[in-house]
């Protein structure tokens, strides 16, 4: 399975789009070698601004660049960029400024531990009006998304992991924020996630279907905001239930957003897989995903129990 590091792809895309769009400028907070914005810095030194370990000032400067007609791309680690600079992002969203926040190290980062995992960023970002929130499932989708990121006039937040996800899309995949990305059709339960959640659902679905004799639909929710509610609900209305998988706190992430939509129309039983409102410690990412239940066994168990529940 092809699995490219999304921050590497991001770094390359910056260089590629930097050539095409002269108004793109990039800001980083002393993490350019980690976020791979260093590639842009090397290619376009005049248009790269290392703002030091000061996320608030980095974001504030991005607002200034935006009102000056530039397209600022702001990067850094997810939790520090979204958390420390939130008040600045909020004002950018208020004025609908054309800033692009693209961060790496989202979700469980591994050995750096609880200070560095980003399991609360979607809660922070989803409550901001005007903000488009994107989370690509693989390198193919990231590439296709990038054009939209630059073309959309307004604030955008894109959540990238430290590593990569194995591919779920073919090269001819077309991305649109208005499109619901159904990766696999099914008639019993819909598995819905973004980033790692999509990867887990997509790559487990075949074996779980065989083991449990169940028909599963898989939706990649790579546009977290705005979601085309009408289209999404059409895809789930005739199913028995929905399971959300997210590498994020189960509170106020995509589970909460989708549950609200479903509850307001045709309620369906739902189950949620994510970080169960705790802080996560250091360790290898794979070990931590295992420990906190973001794995195939837990997914299978949830599907099994949900099927049992729907029979009663």
């Amino acid at each position, binding site marked *: 399975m092809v699995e490219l590091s999304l921050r590497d792809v991001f770094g390359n895309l910056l260089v590629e789009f930097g050539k095409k769009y002269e108004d793109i400028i990039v800001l980083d907070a002393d993490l350019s070698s980690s976020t791979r914005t260093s590639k842009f810095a090397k290619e376009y030194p005049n248009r790269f601004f290392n703002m030091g370990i000061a996320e*608030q*000032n980095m974001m*504030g*400067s991005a607002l200034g660049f935006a*009102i*000056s007609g530039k397209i600022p791309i702001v990067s850094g680690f997810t939790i520090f960029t979204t958390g420390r600079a939130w008040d600045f992002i909020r004002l950018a969203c*208020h*004025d609908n400024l054309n800033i692009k926040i693209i961060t790496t190290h989202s979700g469980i980062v591994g050995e750096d531990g609880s200070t560095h995992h980003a399991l609360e960023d979607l809660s922070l970002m989803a409550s901001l009006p005007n903000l488009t929130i994107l989370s690509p499932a693989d390198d193919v989708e990231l590439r296709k998304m990038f054009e939209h990121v630059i073309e959309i006039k307004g604030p955008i937040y894109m959540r990238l992991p430290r590593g990569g996800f194995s591919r779920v899309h073919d090269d001819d995949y077309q991305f649109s924020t208005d499109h619901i990305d159904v990766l696999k059709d099914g008639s019993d339960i819909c598995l819905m996630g973004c980033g790692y959640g999509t990867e887990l659902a997509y790559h487990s679905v075949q074996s779980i279907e065989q083991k449990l004799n169940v028909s599963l639909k898989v939706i990649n929710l790579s546009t977290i905001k705005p979601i085309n509610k009408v289209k999404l609900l059409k895809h789930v209305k005739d199913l028995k239930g929905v399971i959300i998988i997210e590498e994020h706190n189960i509170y106020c992430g995509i589970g909460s957003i989708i549950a609200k939509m479903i509850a307001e129309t045709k309620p369906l039983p739902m189950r949620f897989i994510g970080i169960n409102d705790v802080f996560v410690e250091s360790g290898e990412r794979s070990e931590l995903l295992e420990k906190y239940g973001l794995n195939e066994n837990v997914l299978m168990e949830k599907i099994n129990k949900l099927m049992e529940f729907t029979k009663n």
Partner: protein
Amino acid sequence: MKLSKKEETQLMLDIFDIKEDILKMIYRSQSGHPGGSLSCANLIYILYKNVLKLKPEEPQWKERDYFILSKGHAAPALYAVLSKIGFIDKDKLMTLRAYNSELQGHPIKNEKLRIEIITGSLGMGLSIGVGCALSAKLDKKKDKYVYVLLGDGELNEGAIWEAAMSAAHYNLDNLIAIIDRNGFQIDGSTEEIMALEPLASKWKSFGWEVIELDGSNLSELIKGFNRAKKVIKKPILIISYLIKGADVSFMENTRLFHGRPPNKEEFVAAMGELEFLKDEIREGRL
């Protein structure tokens, strides 16, 4: 540029008109910040009247100077100045803070009204100014300046000092920050709440060119801005010593009118004082 006596008199009369508008707006809406609006009204007016490069007929003129009101609670002063200059209809002023009004409690971006960006969450304007100044440098716009008006209380915010560090790092001599040094914040005097002094040496040590002046003196203000534009390779800070609630005796040098509107008696008394001072100016006694 040195002001003639006639010019200075006219500017002072304009500023008193602006102060009357500020008080009327806040009195009518029964909410707003009189103290910090009266302190900097003259400064904002001088900026718009004598300093900022703008095209009245073209709000989004690319070569224009930028003004960022970091102390967004002085919105009444900004609106009253914009009205005096002719960018806001005078009738609109009395809708301050009202439902459906463009004149929000704190300013929001409005191209038509020449408001560049939302402010009001304190400590953000200088970073925004850094971005504007870096952008102008990138575009090699040598004649474009970015002016940021800071409150002294908001210097408590850490982001101000991040911005200060970065402006010096990038040698932003097109960034001119002004501190409305009136000495008061909501809960008390700045030195009592979170001491700022020695303020000038703090900024100097951050790599800024610091100009200290009496902000109540219009000629000195204009001279200060001219001096600021001559500085090279350093950002410039003008510490403008001003008076909280300036020109209304019972609002001066007190925290009490930071965010409280005057009642009827206070409003009438304040307007009477401003009218009296205008007469003094007209008759050359002030």
